[in-house]
């Protein structure tokens, strides 16, 4: 009986990665290795103002003094930072002014990913910024957004055209020396997305960035900065994929969000970097620092993530609840399969009065993978009436995987009310048999059960993403039942 179960398990978990192709696009890149000279070159290539170079160098000097964090429940192989290319960009003669001038091979890449860049196809109402190998390729719908005063462009462009905004907010939520990977990113990041919502504006469409690593031996270091002025609202989506390669590739991103008074920012991620093959070879190392600051009173930041890819995921989208009555939310589904490892969670720091946070984390482990939730709820001395609700569920498929929960609480104010719930369950043979008996095959049954389990989180995603995420969950777990 156990054997049969293992067999099915194996089948479901062992499906192939759909986005593993490489595109034949000419890239311009710097030689491997990292030193001050490389950083100066990156800055120069991007024609950056002095303050940017200073920010990078300061970060680099910090980074040199830092060590790889060892506290996560991850086995991180030694990374040779001198063996990585820190800058690769698709070669284009000049910045394309319309899609006709964009390399057709590049457009094809995004089409194969199911990301149509043609604006007419975008009547569905999602503005897209596509980032290939660290460089923003095309941002759609810019003009429409500009009418409302919304700035949505690549980070590099923002540095050129809105240097004051960049200077004012960059590094205020995630300082250059925040942690090892954030410092690395701050030193070498090449592009990313920038988004600014002016006072009183409700962004009329979802803003979306698709990240794609293409070139070999290249690290991807993008940086996203979102600023929501008083009384504004924006919903932001992020998707990512990468080719199948035997060597591991490094992805170290930084996302900073600033929400001012009464502003609300929803940030949704469907992370599907290449996870490596069934034997654990290759895959992306995903070390990401995402943090939002509820700076103004009554502001709200909500993180939703569906993490299915990457060989290693190290990621803790967090909220600093500084404004009174501000709200932080974290909804996460993290799936690990085969030899994937994930250590993910959040930090909610309550500083203002009457601040509230909600954490819903759903881990799913299959194969020989390890999946950990790590979360910190911190209530500062003056944070009167802080409230937190945390729910951390783990679902195991088979008996070779692991699920771990590491909740931390630091409460310095007696008026705080903190609730924590945790469950661990296994997808039961009984549940699958029940579905089978109703004519639903095992694979579809797993899809159904897993999506049911993750429903609370999937419901938080915008419609287009929710459908994609549901399929992704099923594909990721194809071949894996217990």
């Amino acid at each position, binding site marked *: *009986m156990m054997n*049969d*179960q293992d067999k099915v398990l194996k089948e479901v978990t062992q499906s192939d990665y759909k986005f593993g192709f490489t595109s034949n696009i000419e890239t311009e890149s710097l030689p491997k290795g990292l030193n001050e000279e490389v950083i100066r070159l990156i800055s120069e290539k991007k024609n950056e103002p002095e303050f940017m170079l200073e920010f990078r160098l300061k970060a680099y000097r910090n980074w040199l003094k830092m060590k790889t964090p060892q506290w996560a429940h991850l086995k991180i192989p030694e990374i040779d930072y001198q063996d990585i290319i820190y800058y690769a960009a698709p070669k284009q003669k000049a910045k394309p002014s319309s899609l006709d001038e964009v390399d057709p091979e590049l457009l094809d890449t995004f089409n194969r990913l199911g990301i149509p860049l043609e604006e007419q196809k975008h009547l569905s109402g999602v503005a897209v910024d596509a980032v290939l190998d660290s460089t923003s390729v095309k941002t759609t719908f810019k003009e429409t957004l500009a009418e409302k005063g919304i700035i949505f462009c690549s980070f590099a462009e923002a540095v050129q055209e809105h240097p004051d905004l960049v200077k004012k907010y960059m590094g205020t939520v995630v300082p250059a020396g925040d942690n090892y990977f954030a410092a690395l990113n701050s030193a070498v990041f090449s592009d990313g997305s920038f988004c600014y919502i002016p006072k009183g504006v409700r962004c009329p469409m979802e803003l979306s960035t698709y990240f794609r690593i293409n070139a070999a031996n290249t690290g991807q270091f993008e940086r996203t900065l979102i600023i929501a002025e008083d009384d504004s609202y924006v919903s932001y989506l992020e998707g990512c994929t990468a080719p199948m390669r035997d060597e591991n590739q490094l992805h170290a991103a930084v996302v900073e969000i600033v929400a001012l008074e009464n502003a609300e920012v929803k940030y949704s991620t469907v992370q599907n970097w290449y996870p490596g093959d069934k034997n654990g070879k290759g895959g992306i190392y995903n070390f990401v620092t995402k943090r939002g600051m509820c700076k103004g009173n009554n502001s709200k930041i909500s993180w939703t993530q569906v993490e299915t890819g990457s060989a290693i995921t190290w990621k803790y989208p967090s909220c600093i609840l500084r404004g009174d009555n501000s709200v932080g939310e974290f909804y996460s589904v993290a799936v690990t399969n085969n030899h994937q490892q994930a250590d993910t969670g959040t930090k909610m720091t309550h500083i203002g009065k009457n601040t509230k946070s909600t954490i819903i984390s759903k881990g799913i482990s299959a194969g020989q993978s390890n999946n950990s939730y790590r979360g910190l709820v911190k209530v500062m001395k003056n944070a009167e009436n802080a409230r937190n609700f945390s729910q951390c569920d783990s679902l195991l498929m088979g008996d070779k995987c692991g699920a771990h929960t590491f909740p931390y609480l630091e409460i310095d104010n007696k008026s705080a009310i903190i609730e924590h719930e945790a469950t661990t369950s296994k997808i*039961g*043979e*009984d*549940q699958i*048999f*029940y*579905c*089978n*008996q*109703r*004519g*639903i*095959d*095992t694979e*579809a049954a797993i899809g*159904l*059960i897993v*999506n*049911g*389990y*993750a*429903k*609370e989180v999937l419901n938080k995603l915008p419609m287009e993403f929710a459908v994609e995420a549901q399929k992704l969950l099923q594909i990721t777990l194809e071949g894996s039942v217990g």
Partner: protein
Amino acid sequence: MLKIKELYVTINDQEILKGINLEVNPGELHAIMGPNGSGKSTLASVLAGREEVNVTSGSIEYNGEDLLEMDPEERAHKGVFLGFQYPVEIPGVSMVNFMKTAVNEQRKQRGMEELSASDFLKLMREKSEFVGLKNNLTNRAVNEGFSGGEKKRNEIFQMAMLDPALSILDETDSGLDIDALKAVANGVNKLKRKDNATVVITHYQRLLDYIIPDFVHVLYKGKIVKSSDKSLALELEEKGYDWLEKEVEV
């Protein structure tokens, strides 16, 4: 429709069924009765295709095909339905979604088109009224937080939705109060047609006050020791199962 011949079954190397013979024809309603541990649920499991059930010899023919060769879902597509003794909870999966997947999967296998959302919801409403299942139950997650009675009614509801050719109801009456029992029996009676068959597995005769079987079989220590019409059920009710011991030993 169903022909079981000299069926021997083990679970974890322990012999549970010891040479079962049973024939079920369209339009018939069979009741299989027997004390605890006689192998009733094992018989239901082997018909539905549970993995842990191991057939050591014998055969099961279903509409001329070898049932034992089929996966559980294939059996379902071909019209075999099992009403579970302990219906399983699937948190977060709505009954609507669950049933829609099941019904459309079955239709696909039969070369039919999927039902549209509105046709499907209409069917749901129709069938839930038919079996007297409250509408709000169908909006909840599969069996999650259902009372014992609701779970069993939900099984009959699913039976109505899938319209099986052969239904096996495993202890569907256990743990029911009289109203739920009547509702379940009523559903079974209403679903009975000339072209389908039902096998009701039960410990007690009280269900048979509301469902009139064409045949009653007594399963005892892994064998069908007596088959007769419904009068047998009454005899069992009166005398219990002990008297069988002597008869069987003979």
